């Protein structure tokens, strides 16, 4: 076990109750016509792997992140790139976007967070073969600088206050297989490979190395042992088993909590899928949805190269998993719920896309690589992105809803970009234009919450947990910095509430464990809840 700087301990049994003020703003009048589908808006941003074509590793693509960078109240979107440049799109709240170009390339993961607690959001990017950078937006330009005290080149990242000092800490993971392929054994000379926690200090970061090796494509903070404290889960590619660490009073304790996991973990999302007040953990892998011979023939040569045969006691399966806490243990329910196969999957996330109170699953997928898929036309496994609609937590059915594009999706997130109370979908594909899928399904009411901790080093309350009651359902969401694959989350959380017009029994657990209760909030509003003590 590594020596600790972790907070390591459960929330105090008598958590302090703190007061709040709230400000509700009704959603904007819907300018767009109601329909039953999402409408695609293509953006000029084009993520490309290499000028001469995309090969493996570069074909893993680049991330995106959502956050109000310019402070105008609208969620902006930044799209990373590999051979091309990263672009920030400033949102005017009416589906109009103004690009801000940068010279940042070779970007993997992106997040928009307030790293230094100055009240302004920064863009954080991990890069191939380079140190992570932090970008400050000001007056139409972004200035990037190296992240202090961090020397390795990382792939996946996520942010959370992990030592209960109020400041946001970061967890980074390297992608050793790509590094070894490109730089040999001398890679990461100054920092080394593996999984690291970087604790925010007054003038920089203090690192703690949790292990020596990783192929980390995703990092999440589920409460694995249900002690009320967030733990660390790292999803690894290439047969390298996923890694988990529990927060304990003596430091980060390595555990293997799942008896069945994904083999090539591409993304992780943590969500209360069944409205039970307990999060499930969804991870994506590579498994064709259709198993017809044509599809299997397209997949077989690549899979024979990429996957190694596994033994019966190996917990890894080449398919999506949905870990559900049942009978005091995690059990994989993806196969039973028929969400185990969604193609060559990258970002997979839950969000209530039809505002019925149940979070639906959307997975973007597809693969393109000149070397690995040289036997296929366009060197591409071409498959539609997949939406699985959640039917009261009992079953999922695959629907189209205009979300079945066949581009090679990579990073993806869900966010309400035009204040209409409906989650839109943003995708940064590989060798394709970034796209926004505007949600025009006018079904059900919703509530969007923004938490605010003024004059606090974590002003957007990343790590907070919110529970509400509406339409007879108890729902729960976390405020997160990132989830899925290379995708930064906005700080606004969204609840679909069906036919309800008000939401009751709101309970907020702030990142430091303090609790606030609010009796009711009107539905169809964007409500900002500000902590006042």
């Amino acid at each position, binding site marked *: 076990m590594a020596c600790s700087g972790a907070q390591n301990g459960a929330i105090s049994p008598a958590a302090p109750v703190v007061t709040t003020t709230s400000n509700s703003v009704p959603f904007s009048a819907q300018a767009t016509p109601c329909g039953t589908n999402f409408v695609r808006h293509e953006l000029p941003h084009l993520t490309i792997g290499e000028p001469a074509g995309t090969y493996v590793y570069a074909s893993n693509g680049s991330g995106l992140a959502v956050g109000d960078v310019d402070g105008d109240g609208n969620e902006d979107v930044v799209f990373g790139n590999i051979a091309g440049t990263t672009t920030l799109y400033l949102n005017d709240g009416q589906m109009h976007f103004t690009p801000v170009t940068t010279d940042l390339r070779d970007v993997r993961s992106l997040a928009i967070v307030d790293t230094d607690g100055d009240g302004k959001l920064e863009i954080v990017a991990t890069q191939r073969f380079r140190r992570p950078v932090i970008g400050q937006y000001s007056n139409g330009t972004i200035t990037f600088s190296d992240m202090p005290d961090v020397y390795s080149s990382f792939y996946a990242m996520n942010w959370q206050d992990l030592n209960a000092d109020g400041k946001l800490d970061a967890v980074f993971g390297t992608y050793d297989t790509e590094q070894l392929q490109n730089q040999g054994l001398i890679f990461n000379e100054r920092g080394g490979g593996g999984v690291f926690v970087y604790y925010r200090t007054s003038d920089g970061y203090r690192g703690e190395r949790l292990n020596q090796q990783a192929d980390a494509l995703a990092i999440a903070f589920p409460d694995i042992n249900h002690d009320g404290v967030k733990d660390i889960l790292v999803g690894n590619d290439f047969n390298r088993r996923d890694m988990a660490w529990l927060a304990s009073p003596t430091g980060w304790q390595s555990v293997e909590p799942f008896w069945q996991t994904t083999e090539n973990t591409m993304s992780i999302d943590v969500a209360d899928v069944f409205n039970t007040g307990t999060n499930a953990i969804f991870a994506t892998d590579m498994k064709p949805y259709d198993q017809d011979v044509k599809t299997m023939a*397209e997949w*077989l040569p690549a899979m024979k190269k990429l996957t190694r045969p596994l*033994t019966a006691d190996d917990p890894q399966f080449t398919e999506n998993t949905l870990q559900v806490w049942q009978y005091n243990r995690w059990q994989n329910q993806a*196969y039973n719920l028929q969400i185990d196969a969604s193609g060559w999957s990258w970002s997979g996330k839950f969000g209530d896309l039809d505002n019925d109170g149940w979070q639906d699953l959307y997975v973007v997928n597809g693969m393109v690589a000149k070397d690995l898929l040289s036997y296929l036309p366009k060197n591409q496994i071409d498959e539609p992105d997949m939406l699985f609609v959640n039917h009261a937590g009992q079953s999922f059915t695959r629907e189209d809803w205009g979300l079945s594009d066949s581009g090679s999706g990579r990073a993806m997130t869900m966010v309400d970009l035009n204040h209409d109370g409906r989650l839109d979908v943003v995708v940064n594909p590989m060798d394709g234009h970034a796209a926004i899928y505007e949600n025009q399904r006018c079904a059900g009411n919703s509530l969007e919450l923004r938490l605010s901790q003024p004059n606090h080093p974590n002003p957007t309350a990343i790590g907070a947990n919110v529970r509400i009651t509406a339409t007879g359902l108890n729902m729960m969401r976390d405020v997160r910095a990132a989830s899925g694959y290379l995708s930064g989350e906005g700080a606004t959380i969204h609840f679909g509430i069906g036919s309800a017009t008000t939401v009751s029994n709101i309970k907020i657990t702030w990142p430091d464990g303090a609790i606030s209760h609010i009796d009711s909030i009107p539905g169809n509003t964007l409500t900002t809840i500000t902590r006042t003590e």
Partner: protein
Amino acid sequence: MNGSFVEIIIEYFNHLFRIRQTQFASTQGIVTPMRLRTIFDLRQEWILVILGVIVGGLLGFLAYINKYPAWIQAACVIAGLLPAYSKHVVDIYVKHGWWSATLTMLVAAQSFHGVEHLVQWVQYHILRWPFFKASGIISAANAEWVHFGWNWMVLVIMIVLVIGGLRNPFAYLMLAWTIAHTAEHTYLMWRYLQALQELAALGMPEVSAQGLPGFFGRDGWIATSEATRNSFVCRLPGFTTAVRLDVHFWWNVGETVLLILATETTLRQRNRTSTN
């Protein structure tokens, strides 16, 4: 006998039936009644068995020191025992006729096939070998066309035996089981050939399509069909959740057990009839 194929088949069944009638009517007291254990009883061939073990073992050892694959070494040892067993089958044919010799060969072969699947199961679940390595004793025979050919052969022989007198509830159940098993392997073979065609069209003829799911088990046709998606059928333990190795282990456990029960039941009936 005339020359047409159908006439040859009819003549064969008539022959079988005559032998059966002859056995029932005229063999009591002359020939030792055939029992289930007779099928596996090689004591009378002990010289051939010992010679077979020595020669087979020697060949296996030579294969070992020449670094031939493990399955060739095992095949050498098994091949050494074939003369003894062939002599045994000829003896049964002489004493009990074609039907009994045919039954003997099927029971012995299916039992060995069942052991192959048991070994695969042990390799995978007990020894924790990966799928590709858990291929039984004669691992090279773990190929789609071998399974396909084998199961059709078992089905045809089973039909012959039922027509020839293997008639009891276990035999009928075995016949139904074999038909279903063969149907699955026919589906697997069809998918295998289609996949090879697709791979060849992609310019990847060297890639094998061995091991695709069939009707049953995890990712099988029943589990992934649009007709059953999101129904309880997709979650039936084993039926639509077991891995392919387990599915075929249970297919063969069922087939072997039913065949032995059917054989034992019929032989007991015959022996009772012949001693009355």
